[in-house]
């Protein structure tokens, strides 16, 4: 029975501000889930703390709303203990790139087969609009007493440097595009990041829906706004690394990721910046050590026999520590 959008609804009252970009991300995620060949019983959504992270309560799938900045720890732990789960993590930019940035970097090193969507709006919404790590230097959004004193993190470049094997960007109100990115991220074999740009109608009065939509830039010819985002693929861009590529070609590809990630302002690229499935996923690396890992992962191993006695053969396990007492010949 095909999963319908209504199946993914919960009774929980949605308390996001009207016009919040979170709605677009929620809708895109739910559409993606209904269009993907996934068993919804195996889908586990994890979130951090912040407006965006309430998403799991509005979605009828296993939903684990964790700690600020720690979503990746919980999500990776669950995926490793049961690799059959389809784990998707979501969280804000402050969550993932501020307090949780250490985990972000190290998740790249592991390359666990899961997806991570960052709701990127440049502000800490739930604490009333402080600057987040993606807000640019000198910007003064609505509730900042002074302009932002810090430079911003470039999530695409940081993800590349950290070893992420799928790096994409999308825009919350381009739900068709975001949905496709989510489907690609979930299908990707490895750790996949989507930097989902979104307006915060309450606190970010600079990068608004109108700003992204280019309503201040009317095309003189068509008299229509010229949106600031554009689709990378429409320009012939291909960020895929394949096994048959030469080192030079790989280098070229990496450089174009960096180049594209630096575009901002009037031209903001969305789409897949980088995809590399030649890096073995962490699960495969574990299987090299424990051949039964994928078929008998930690969550699926029976620990005791029917009488409760442990299945472990302690005598064999402790052999290296056991000393027989030797009696020498008389």
């Amino acid at each position, binding site marked *: 029975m095909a999963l319908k959008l209504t199946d993914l609804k919960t009774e929980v009252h949605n308390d996001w501000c009207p016009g919040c970009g979170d709605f677009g991300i929620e809708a895109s995620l739910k559409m993606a889930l209904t269009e993907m060949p996934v068993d919804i019983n195996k889908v586990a959504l994890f979130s951090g703390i912040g407006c965006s992270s309430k998403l799991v309560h509005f979605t009828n799938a296993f939903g684990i709303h964790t700690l600020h900045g720690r979503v990746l720890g919980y*999500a990776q*732990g669950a995926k490793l*203990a049961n690799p059959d789960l389809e784990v998707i993590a979501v969280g804000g930019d402050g969550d993932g790139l501020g307090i949780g940035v250490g985990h972000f970097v190290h998740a790249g090193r592991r390359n666990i087969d899961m997806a991570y969507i960052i709701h990127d709006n440049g502000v800490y919404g739930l604490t009333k609009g402080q600057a987040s790590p993606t807000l640019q230097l000198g910007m003064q959004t609505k509730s900042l007493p002074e302009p932002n004193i810090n430079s911003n993190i470039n999530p695409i470049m940081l993800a590349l440097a950290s070893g992420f094997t799928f790096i994409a960007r999308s825009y919350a109100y381009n739900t068709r595009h975001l949905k496709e990115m989510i489907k690609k991220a979930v299908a990707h074999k490895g750790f996949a990041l989507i930097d989902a740009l979104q307006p915060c109608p309450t606190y970010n009065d600079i990068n608004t829906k109108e700003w992204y939509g280019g309503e201040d830039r009317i095309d003189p010819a068509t008299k229509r706004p010229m949106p600031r985002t554009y689709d990378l693929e429409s320009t012939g861009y291909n960020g895929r690394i394949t096994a048959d590529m030469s080192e030079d070609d790989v280098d070229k590809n990496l450089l174009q990721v960096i180049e594209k990630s630096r575009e901002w302002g009037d031209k903001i690229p969305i789409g897949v910046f980088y995809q590399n499935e030649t890096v073995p996923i962490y699960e495969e690396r574990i299987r090299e*050590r424990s051949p039964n890992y994928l078929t008998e992962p930690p969550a699926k191993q029976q620990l005791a026999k029917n009488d409760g006695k442990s299945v472990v053969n302690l005598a064999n396990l402790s052999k290296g520590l056991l000393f027989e007492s030797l009696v*020498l010949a008389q």
Partner: protein
Amino acid sequence: MKWTAVSVHVPIVPRTNDVAAQSATTRLREAKTMSRAIVKVNDLSWMTGGPQGSGVDSSANIFAGACVLGGLWTFGLREYYSSIKGPHSYFEVRVNSDKIRSHVNNVDVLATFDAETLIRHADEVAPGGGILYDPTFSNIEIDKVDTIETPVVLRIKARLAKQGLPGTVTGILDESRKRGINLFPINYNDIIVKTAAQIGEHQLSKLSRIVNVLSVSASFAILGFDETYLNQSIERAFASKKKVVDMNEIGAKLAYEVARSQLKQPFPFQLHPIQNQPRLLLMGVESIALGKLVGGCRVQTYYPITPAADESEFLESHGNFDISGGNNASQKGSILVTQTEDEIAAITMATGAALTGARAATSTSGPGFSLMVEGLGWAGMNEVPLVITHYQRGGPATGQPTRHEQGDLKFILSAAHGEFPRIVLCSGDMEESFYDAIRIFNYAERFQMPSIHLIDKGLANNSMTIPPPNADLVPIQRGKLIEADHQGNGEAEPYRRFAFTQDGVSPRAVLGMPGYRFWNTGDEHDEMGHIEEDPDNRVKMMTKRMTKLETAAREIPEDEKFNFFRSSKKQADVTIVSWGSTKGPILDAMKLLEKDGIGVEFLQIRLVSPFPTGKVKQKLAGAKLVIGIEQNYSGQMAAVIAEKTMIDVKNKIVKFNGRPMSQDEIYQSVKQVISNPAQNRRVVLTHGA
């Protein structure tokens, strides 16, 4: 060089009980009066030391291994600096014909192969004992040994100066000789040269590492212990490296002869093999790791920290193991050990793993646990059966990373904001910690709360000979875990992860279970797991969670909450209350106190949360004299007892110099308190180098 072909006569000495239980003072007196007669068979304290990284641990393990192969029992005290190469570490191995659980103050044989060990520890050797040393070091001046701290240098030089002795190794040797200690010069370099010639190795540097085994072998020569046991122990230690085995065995034989040739009469301490059952020789980190695997731990996360990391490394190196029964087609079990970027990731990953139904743990020490605290609160709020093995070390801050302390009890009991139930279980020795490592998972799952297994550095790093544990004694209990093959909850009502129940424990589904969808959140939540700020719900949900602590208190059997030991049937003169690895020296000291006619009771508290208030009250209320013994400054368990029972433990024996308590320290200080309790409200112990 295989031992099996050897045919020698080794007398089998019957096991005796009395040799173990002589007081330190008696031992001293005997040693003085009978310095040329054999006074001690199978009752020995042996010490080796050297620069960190020079093989001190391996030589001590080879020594202890040989003793255990000879049927004897051992206890090993391991002391080391927070450093990798250079600074001084030492290892004291106590050997007996009966099970022993602690170290003693005096050293009977000090086996040195560097000047520093001799300089630092010569004064710990009891008269009648022996020192093995390298005579080429005689002229070394004490203040030229860089790695000895200035205060120690000044202390030793002052001691020698008072006796008119020079501040050199010779001064130390003269002092020792005057104190009636037997000196055994072993020219290690000579032996290494001869060994090199025998195996045809021209590069002497390749053989330099055998020096510690040479000192072990020379020790066994003076102790009259057949060299076959040493060879067997060497073969175990270097199993896969034949060349290393050969050079060690050849060198050992030469060293054995050199030492034996110096014996004009039998040395006052002797080791004789006895018949015995097979036993395990292990450290606490190893017994806990074994317990975890047997207890079903299948995910362990950790960030490197002393002294906890050894446990994770043991688990990783035993990551695939044999099983019988169970559902694994491979008939192999496996544990996933993941090193994380920090302790926050360690606790959150382990928690995520626990949500899938895997038994998951993380292992750390004080500084790491400090970082984990937010994750602890989340696990408490979401009723996750997470296990944390916490190895205490000297604090606060970096504190004394490699030294012993029991300073985290009150922190562990109250860590994280807000109120939530937790299990805190403290083990006292290697055997107990094996079983407790299984139990802690049972508690975590039965009562659905974060559960902390509280260990200390002494237990973690000291070694002990124990009988092989019986894993079947602690069956695995998974509480209200919903069976994996359930398809749907079979009811029209949706599954409620946090359903209100009589005992506070709700049926637990895991991620991925069809028909049992649930939500978790760090916010206060309703039965489904959705955020809920309604005041009535808050009261019900808080009450539900806290009720589980009462459930645990009711359901955990008494013998898992505390141990109560009595040294004799008669009225106890003193009741000791303690926890953690002080159990060993207290039990050993009780034997000495009993010899002196002192009736002792010992209440060892193991479960601190939920606290066995009623029983502790009952055991302490009528006691003649209660002494709290702990390895911290303030007496943290005494404070917990006061809080829970309103009983004031008036007399305390504490130690916080970073070194574990010895049997003799406890014996002497308990007597001191008994002699005048009012004048000895707080005795501070200081032994240890």
